[in-house]
């Protein structure tokens, strides 16, 4: 018998088409390939248009700050000649406190222009605050669906805070227990209300992040005379990496390396009621970073605009304890008290800068607001209450969900390289698995897979041959 869940999910395509105000089928080229660039530009807004939308929305043009103290601290532990200059884009200065405002401003502009009465987003993150804030400014109704509680109704404090801020902006916040059926309920609500789906993964939202890449390039050229050698991005669903990298390219920053960074949450299951309150990070972690990069189309839109493997040059992971340590250091040394998840890339930057020449320049491209619940002290106190051990020591001993190890010295901070080649292979496997059974990929499909993984046809063919053998 079809369950209520199955019944809604069977109508999902039709409901989402109405709620997104665009038909994704026009971009499809084959059971595997679609026209990504055409999808990204179908909304018809130029980059200048988006800058205009965001300026009116109170979003963007955040300060780019050089972190001289952190840079010298890194140099104090680096070999002679090493220790890149570190800069940060203080995205917490956006209206609702995070780069997510860039995404929301464009989505809400579209919803308003298309005449929707309200907007809905499924997000337990800063995106909820951004959507709620922009909806309030535009007189649109707003529903935010959050995964907030475990089955004992113990709320993850960061998500409880995000629920609070959404309610402060006048949104209706629908709070749920753990499980991917959050999306089922969102689709159900879209069906009932006829509101616009302000998806994190639509081309509207991801186009909104391109201005961040553009600003970084312009500001670094005026500050240092050149584009940054490296931009490092806190990576979760992939929109941040994709949008920033696209913006940099559009600004002509072709030589800048794109480094993504996530908190290592390996060993924890993202749909586990037991693990839910033992993660200590609600975003910026590998639990989103790896599955979304290796299969972007698992998102709530037919084709995800966030396709990070197109842009990633390196993917670094750091431990929970390392991020909390750097979050404390940022406040004490740079006067920047910001949220821990947003400092994931900052933590990886400390490790990266140590290995780069002094002439290199690293831009950490975001910060996020902090406060009760989101603060690193809140998270560590909560972790202890949930039975996670917190202690000082060697961050290599950090074990997500079991023990958070706070470094004893900055020298101990060392990011790990995640194997991007393995992610590419995993992506190709998923793309083939999701095509109809027996479908034989064409040369065009292989070209698409090469573009979607930032590799070439020969590399994709080699992966396919290897998968066939296995």
């Amino acid at each position: 018998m079809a369950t209520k869940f199955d019944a809604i999910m069977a109508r999902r395509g039709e409901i989402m088409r109405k709620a997104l105000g665009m038909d994704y089928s026009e971009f499809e080229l084959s059971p595997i390939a679609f026209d990504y660039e055409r999808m990204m530009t179908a909304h018809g807004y130029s980059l200048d248009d988006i800058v205009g939308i965001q300026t009116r929305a109170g979003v963007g043009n955040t300060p780019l700050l050089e972190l001289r103290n952190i840079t010298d601290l890194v140099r104090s532990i680096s070999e002679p000649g090493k220790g890149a200059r570190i800069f940060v884009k203080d995205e917490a200065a956006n209206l609702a406190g995070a780069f997510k405002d860039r995404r929301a401003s464009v989505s809400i502009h579209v919803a308003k222009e298309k005449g929707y009465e309200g907007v809905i987003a499924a997000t337990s993150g800063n995106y909820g605050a951004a959507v709620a804030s922009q909806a309030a400014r535009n007189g649109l109704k707003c529903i935010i669906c959050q995964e907030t509680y475990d089955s004992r109704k113990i709320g993850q404090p960061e998500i409880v805070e995000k629920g609070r801020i959404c309610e402060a902006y006048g949104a209706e916040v629908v709070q749920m227990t753990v499980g991917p059926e959050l999306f089922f309920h969102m689709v159900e609500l879209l069906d009932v209300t006829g509101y616009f789906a302000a998806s994190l993964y639509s081309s509207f939202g991801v186009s909104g992040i391109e201005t961040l890449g553009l600003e970084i390039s312009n500001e670094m050229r005026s500050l240092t005379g050149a584009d940054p050698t490296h931009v490092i991005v806190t990576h979760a669903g992939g929109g941040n990496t994709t949008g920033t990298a696209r913006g940099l390219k559009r600004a002509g920053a072709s030589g800048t390396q794109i480094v993504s960074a996530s908190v290592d949450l390996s060993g924890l299951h993202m749909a586990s009621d037991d693990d839910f309150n033992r993660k200590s990070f609600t975003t910026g972690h590998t639990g989103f970073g790896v599955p979304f990069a290796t299969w972007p189309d698992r998102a709530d839109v037919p084709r995800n605009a966030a396709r990070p493997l197109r842009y990633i040059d390196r993917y670094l992971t750091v431990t929970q304890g390392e991020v909390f340590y750097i979050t404390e250091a940022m406040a004490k040394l740079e006067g920047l008290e910001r949220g821990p998840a947003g400092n994931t890339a900052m933590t990886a930057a400390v490790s990266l800068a140590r290995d780069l020449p002094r002439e290199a320049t690293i831009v950490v491209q975001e910060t996020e607001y902090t406060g009760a619940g989101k603060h690193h002290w809140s998270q560590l106190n909560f972790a202890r209450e949930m039975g996670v051990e917190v202690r000082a020591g060697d961050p290599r001993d950090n074990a997500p969900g079991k023990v958070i190890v706070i470094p004893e010295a900055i020298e101990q901070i060392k990011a790990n390289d995640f194997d991007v080649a393995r992610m590419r292979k995993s992506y190709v496997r998923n793309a083939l698995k999701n095509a109809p059974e027996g479908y034989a990929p064409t040369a065009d499909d292989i070209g698409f897979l090469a573009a979607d993984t930032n590799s070439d046809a020969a590399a994709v063919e080699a992966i396919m041959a290897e998968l066939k053998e296995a």
Partner: protein
Amino acid sequence: MADATRAREGDWVEVECKLLDPADRSKNLPPETAEKPLMMWVKGFAQGGAGMGEELTIETMTGRKVTGALSAVNPGYFITYGNPIPELTHVGRDLRKQLAAYRVAQGGER
């Protein structure tokens, strides 16, 4: 002070609803999640009176009517910072010292 265990018409309250029984849930969930129902809470203005756990219809901020069991009256937010973390309290002091020593060795403040 209003009664925190009873909602009157017009009060700002929270209701609890069961969205999915375990049998109706998504497949491929870990067992500890699969065996539990999917629960939902939402806040709004009470459309009548009710005691805790009793059925009540609310009107949410978007004007939706939702019926569930009353779970809180005038629900608050009890997130805090908590105590300083002993493993972190020394970080600022130590790093400032390390930075100052480095700058002295480099020939003074730049």
